[in-house]
């Protein structure tokens, strides 16, 4: 239950509100997750007036403000196609207008294709206060703690890695029940993460090559049982998903 609403116009005043001891104060980006029914009383800081809606390229680094909506990501010419595709896959048109990158990082679950892609790409999340850059993979397992009294201001991706994902779903727009996202850097470094279950996508592997990726993905699905699929099924198709990701990255269609 939201008991206070604030809309600061500067980062400083936003951080001041977020840093209060009482009432508990949460960051309201698009609100598509936070505004759902909740009995717990808390205050919100709406960041819509903060300058967090820029998308810029600096060399190979794509920097997207935390307040950028998923639809803005899609409509921006700097955005790589893979991220656009992940945004399309994330949710329907209306919700993409309000859902933000920051909201996705703060509240996205294990079915989030976008979060999986960001994780595979080892995206860096810019946090205030402290102007600290933290890999998204370090935030996801500890979101409540890491993001407490802090504001996500931007997400940066070094696009020198090639990335891809593959997923399985019951229908073309239904959420994925199993998926793998993969990034490969020029030096062979390969990151694999799996998604389609749980609280957030899981990093399965970060190695100097793709060796062992199939096994790593299979292992990452070991504890994935939920009403939508068994862990056994997900483990079974993990190698298929990884093989397809590798083929995508090498340009060989499967």
């Amino acid at each position, binding site marked *: *239950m*939201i*008991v*206070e*609403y604030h*809309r600061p116009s500067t980062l400083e005043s936003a951080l001041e509100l977020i840093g209060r001891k009482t009432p508990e104060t949460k960051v*309201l980006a*698009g*609100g*598509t997750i936070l*505004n*759902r*029914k909740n*009995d717990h009383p808390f*205050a*919100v800081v*709406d960041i*819509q007036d903060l300058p967090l809606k820029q998308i810029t390229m600096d060399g190979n680094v794509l920097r997207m403000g935390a307040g950028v909506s998923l*639809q803005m990501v899609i409509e921006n010419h700097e955005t790589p196609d893979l991220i656009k595709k992940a945004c*399309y896959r994330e949710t*329907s*048109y*209306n*919700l*993409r*207008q*309000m859902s933000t990158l920051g909201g996705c990082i703060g509240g996205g679950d294990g079915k989030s294709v976008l979060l999986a892609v960001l994780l595979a790409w080892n995206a860096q999340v810019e946090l205030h206060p402290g102007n600290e850059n933290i890999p998204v993979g370090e935030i996801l397992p500890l979101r409540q703690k890491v993001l407490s009294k802090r504001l996500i201001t931007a997400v940066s991706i070094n696009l020198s890695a090639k990335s891809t994902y593959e997923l*399985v*779903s*019951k*229908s*073309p*727009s*239904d*959420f994925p*029940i*199993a998926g793998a996202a993969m990034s490969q850097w020029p030096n062979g470094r390969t990151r694999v993460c799996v998604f389609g279950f749980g609280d957030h996508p899981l990093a399965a592997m970060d190695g100097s090559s793709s060796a062992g990726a199939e096994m790593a993905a299979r292992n990452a699905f070991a504890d994935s049982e939920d*009403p*939508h*699929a*068994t862990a056994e*099924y997900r483990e*079974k*198709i993990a190698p*298929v*998903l990884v093989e397809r990701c590798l083929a995508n990255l090498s340009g060989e*269609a*499967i």
Partner: protein
Amino acid sequence: MNLKLHINGVQMLISADPDETLLTVLRKNGFFGVKHGCEDGQCGACAIILDDRPVNSCLILAAQAEGHKIRTIESIGEHPEKGWKTSDGLSIVQKAFVETGAIQCGYCTPAQVLAATSLLEKNLNPTEKEVRDVLSGVLCRCTGYLKPVQAVLRAASYLRGENVERVNPQGEPAGDIGPQVEDIEDSTSEVMTQVKTSVLPKIWMTPQTKTFNTVGKPEKKLDAIKLVQGKPAFTGDIELRGILYAKVLLSPVAHAKIISIDTKEAKALQGVATVLTWQDLPRVVFSTAGQSDPIPGPLDTFSLDKKVRFVGDRVAFVAAETPEIAEQAIRLIKVEYEEEPAILDSNDAMKEGAPVLHDEPEFVNFADSNPARNLAAEIRIDIGDVEQGFKEADLVIEGDYSVPKVQQAHIEPHIVVSYWDEDDRLVLRTSTQVPFHVRRVLAPVLGLPVKRIRVIKPRIGGGFGGKQEILIEDVAAHLTIATGRPVYYEYTREEEFTASRSRHPMKVHMKTGVKKDGTITANEMYALSDTGAYGCHALTVTGNTGHKAMALYVGDGKYRVDPNIRFYADVVYTNTPPSGAYRGYGVPQGYWPVERHMEKIARTLGMDSIEFRLKNTIRSGELHPFSKSWSEGREPRPEIIHTVGLEECVRQGKAVIGWDGKYGNQDWHTVQGKPNLRRGIGIATVMQGTAIPYLDMGGASIKMNDDGSFNMLIGATDLGTGSDTVLAQMAAEVLGIPVEDMIVYSSDTDFTPFDKGAYASSTTYISGTAAVHAAQKIAERIMIRASEMFNHQDAATAIAPEQVKLVDSSAMAPDGRKLSFKEIAYNALHHENQEQIMAVASYVSPVSPPPFAAQFAEVTVDLQTGEVKVEKLVMAVDSGVIINPVTASGQIEGGMTQALGYAVTEEMTYNQKGEAQQKNLIDYHIFRSDEMPELETLFIETFEPSHPFGVKAVAEIPLDGVAPAVGNAILDACSADLRDIPATPERVLKTIIR
């Protein structure tokens, strides 16, 4: 907090709490075009335009919208006729929605119109893919999205200034495909769902259809202009002074006695008007099934009971000044439960020592129900000599199949508003398919005579059987009786999943005897049907599983005369949410096993599966095999089926989907460059029913107005299907008037004649015949008066009434003289021998002529993951004469889409505590506009002799064949013999591996 909101061009100062959503604030301020459908933004019915983008107002705080421009549907378009005041009319987008038949129930229409408007303001040349993406934010459970997509593309075309083809070329039959079979080229995978340039479906017309003026024409829906403007037409779109908001405490446990309920704290909460428990209410047993008297099922339900039987069962009612206070009060009620073992698997229900759900002494049996065995209904039907039939077979093939529990998921939740009127009569304004049953069933429950209850049915935002249930009306009524105040009660989307009704899940065993030449000698089905905690519709839904699905295949030769068919079923109680009525009413559950089994038999015999089917299916002139054995718990009477267009449906459907070029063609089955993919094609042939003979009754009343227009009052409940329009078309055809001169009102138990309600595919056939008969009586009166007027003009030429023709809103004499209906009305109402020209008629049918259909599906299966993509659905339907090809094809498209969910995505499951695992439209996915396969509808008309215009039903049959056609296509693609739906990737992969 005070907010300055810029709404529809006006700056408004509005007070709102910090947690109030924009949806709540807009509706509180009278913007009723913004609809509630869920609480997590998934349905999109609440969409508005914020600045220039469609967003879901249920997920935005009102405070977030400050400083932005808000546009609701109320800012777009107006009725083209506003008297002396100039009207700009509807917007181009609205016009296109009306023209294309994109509006069915109309609940999501404002949101779709806004989404389309925002798109076309930015882009006048959208691709179909872009249109589908923009509409993806608004779920529609009625249309299948084809017509809304066509509407947006059509609007774009208008806005580009192009010359757009009219939907209804006057004088031309709509979309006749003629006698020649058309072969349609395969669409490429690059194309998403093909949007035809023509809005109309292909129709194989009867000669009679071509002679009609209004019947058979794509008339615009009579309620379309209202709905496209988002007018306050639905149950919740009213304001009443002093209204209270209801909430119900739902059980957190699956099976328990209530030891105590402490309501003190809840009652003490400021703003709480009352709290009711079972101790406060009279103990009246009833059934929530909305059916005619006597209810063909057990009476096993109380408004509130001292026992709970599923997670989500009722425990206590609260009425409070606001919904928030009511919710808070619910949390303050303390309940002590004594838990009992729960039955969560239907296989356990009749086991020795199983816990008994219904041990209440008030339980009233119907037929063979037996609460001591957890048996809500038992069905044993033997036609012919089944055992002898098996002996005569060369081969007996058996198989086990299962179908899941699924939800109707109408976008408008269950909602009711109750109040005492100025005469102290209880008024229930409710979103129901069965207003007259609501009144009759609730009278004893509330302790009121029927005459002191009035039920008003406004527009319904989808029902699909879910509102053939007297589900929540009693809650509001009890609270109004307790407080004396109006009460508003609306389900949340979660409550729709946990405390509503759904489709009966079934486990089915099939056993079929066949000869080597493909003749079926005996066919047997046993169904274990799970009615959940209460037996509403238990007997009749499951009875229809056999009555319709097992009636299609009678066998060939001597078996056509004496088929051997057995249908046994046990309908058992379990501690899960009750099952109930859902479009198709047990028949989709039957056709999954029957049609999968027939495919299996044909392949085992090495026969062409279509040839095998048509060899054994029922033909015109034959007896409905069940008609001597079973009739919804009432006396059965033999019935000959006069019209069967199935063979032609198969022929035309095959041509349209390109069957001959695909079936058995290995090249077509593979996908170039994708060795993991296989294509498959499948068919299912199905039949339904049209109304319940000797039972379903509908009435219509028509009166003539001064200007020669007419009011038609009908008890039939248009739940978005277009039945008001279709009934008006039939009456208009009789009277020779344009359909817009028939003003239709439905339905209100005080004003409209009785009608059983919208179910059993009966409205067009039953209520339509009543409308035709009433119109015929009116026509007779007009002809008499016209002849008198003609003769008064010229006494030398005597014109008999039967010589008068009614054409173009006029009465015409054989000598060419004409009297307009306005002149006749003035004469009747004001000038001579004054009378109100009016008539009432009702109709009950002695027969239930079945519609037939051939359903085709094309799929692509991923052999490595089991993922199935349904690429195309084609349905060729014999529904008799099609009164309105646009509304009828909308029924088929929407029905196929619901059935597609049944086939591949939708399933309600429960954990070990009996808790629902799908409580929202994320976990329970219904198809969106951006993922639809190509849909195509063909109508193969027959002229059903038992109806004045040759009509049979159309509404339910599209639910029957999609799942088995998809299952058979999967088999065709990869030899995976799937027994259970939905065809999830995991199930399909397991089957492939097996």
